[in-house]
């Protein structure tokens, strides 16, 4: 290292590159690209920094769960004093605690509704009712025709694809119940969520299920006082609709908007 080229970056400059923080002057950058020795110097700094970080990083800090419980006052007196003392010295943990407190202040105990087959109380997949009297046309797929009629036990849902005044697709629905004890008033206010369906819904694999669970509804609305549902604008795509009734969730799959 004693006979470095005059254009070779200094050790401090190489460290700035190792941390992805520095911008070398053009001639030094070109030199670094061409000089094997300087590349080795840089690699050595990166390596030793990584090794030190991997051994030392937060290695004696309280765990994340302990910090979270500390913020909730859920730790024993001795641990509370110990963590409080640690926080005075450790800016990384102080940052964590500050962030945890912010999250806890803003914590929404009722997360947005999501769907999962495993823990649903009572969830029904609505079936598409094919009108027998409809003329059958060759290559006609009833699942792509509008309007559509769906049924889940006593719940009937009629869906229409229409367009708003500015030409954007919108889904219109009307929900009714064949059960005489279920009045339309009892359906009023039920939340209707429309989700983008990425690939087969409710696939068996964990990954597929996870990806659907993490989705937020694209559109949400509520059933009005006469059972109407309006969702707009609905971009072209494949969707799944959830109608969240008081003790039942009705799932309508295969809503393809072309």
């Amino acid at each position, binding site marked *: 290292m004693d006979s470095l080229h005059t254009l070779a970056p200094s050790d401090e400059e190489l460290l700035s590159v190792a941390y992805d923080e520095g911008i070398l002057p053009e001639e030094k950058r070109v030199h670094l690209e061409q000089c094997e020795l300087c590349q080795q110097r840089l690699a050595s700094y990166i390596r*030793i920094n990584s090794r030190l970080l991997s051994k*030392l990083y937060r*290695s004696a800090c309280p765990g994340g769960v302990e910090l979270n419980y500390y913020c909730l006052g859920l730790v024993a007196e001795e641990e509370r004093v110990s963590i409080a003392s640690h926080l005075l010295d450790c800016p990384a943990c102080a940052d964590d605690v500050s962030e945890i407190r912010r999250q806890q202040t803003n914590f929404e105990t009722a997360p947005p509704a999501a769907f999962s087959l495993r823990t649903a109380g009572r969830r029904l997949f609505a079936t598409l009712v094919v009108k027998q009297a409809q003329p059958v046309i060759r290559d006609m797929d009833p699942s792509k025709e509008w309007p559509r009629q769906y049924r889940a036990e006593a719940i009937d849902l009629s869906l229409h694809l229409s367009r708003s005044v500015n030409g954007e697709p919108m889904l219109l629905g009307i929900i009714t119940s064949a059960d005489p004890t279920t009045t339309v008033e009892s359906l009023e206010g039920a939340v209707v969520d429309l989700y983008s369906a990425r690939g087969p819904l409710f696939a068996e694999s964990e990954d597929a299920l996870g990806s659907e669970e993490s989705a937020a509804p694209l559109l949400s609305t509520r059933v009005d006082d006469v059972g109407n549902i309006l969702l707009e604008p609905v971009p072209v795509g494949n969707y799944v609709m959830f109608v969240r009734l008081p003790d039942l969730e009705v799932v309508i799959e295969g809503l393809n908007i072309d």
Partner: protein
Amino acid sequence: MGTQMDEALGQANLSTLAERCNSELRRHRRKEPADDRYCLEILRRAIVQRVDQAWSMVQQCFSEVVRIWLHSHPSSDIALMRDTVDNYVASTFSRFWYAMRDQKVEFVTLNAVLSYLHATLNGIIMDTTRAHLRSAEVSLPDPGSPQEPVVEDSQDGGLLLEILQSLLPDEGERRVMYLLYYCGFKPREIASRFPNEFADVKEVYRLNQNIIGRLRRNRDRLRWLLGEEEQ
């Protein structure tokens, strides 16, 4: 009236309680008024009375919400690179159970239960991201391998930091070692956060270079840390 209700709850079978608990959780999610007592009763049986079946019911009732939190967590990408959803959910309930048992927490609202459960998951994800940052850097020698340290290495990270800092005579170098490698701050962040300690980022780089130089001069003792290529 309240006492009668409490008695009725105490005598209700678990399946009924779980059904009502699920129903109340759905109401809670829709932000409608929910009756917390069914969920709290199952929890009481699980944690205070230690009824295994009640604990299973608790997990069934609350696992969906834990999954939702996990998927919506800002660090979920990193977390899910390192473990499965099921394992995070299981770990959350496990840590939650021990914490509730050890601290003898008595929940009075569903919101409190959800807050503690969320705090548990959040802490587990924080631990995972810390571990990810450590392991993403380099793979260290396997135990027992020729590169494995004899004396200097320690499972106690605090002790290891002390040992390494003892090789640094300068207070500023010891401080930079702590902030860079223990806290994980970048040099630029150190300079901006601690302007009373460091004039500028160049000073941090300079001290960092001194640290590495001193460690290299102790390469015989630190071969395990510096690796063969640093010799």
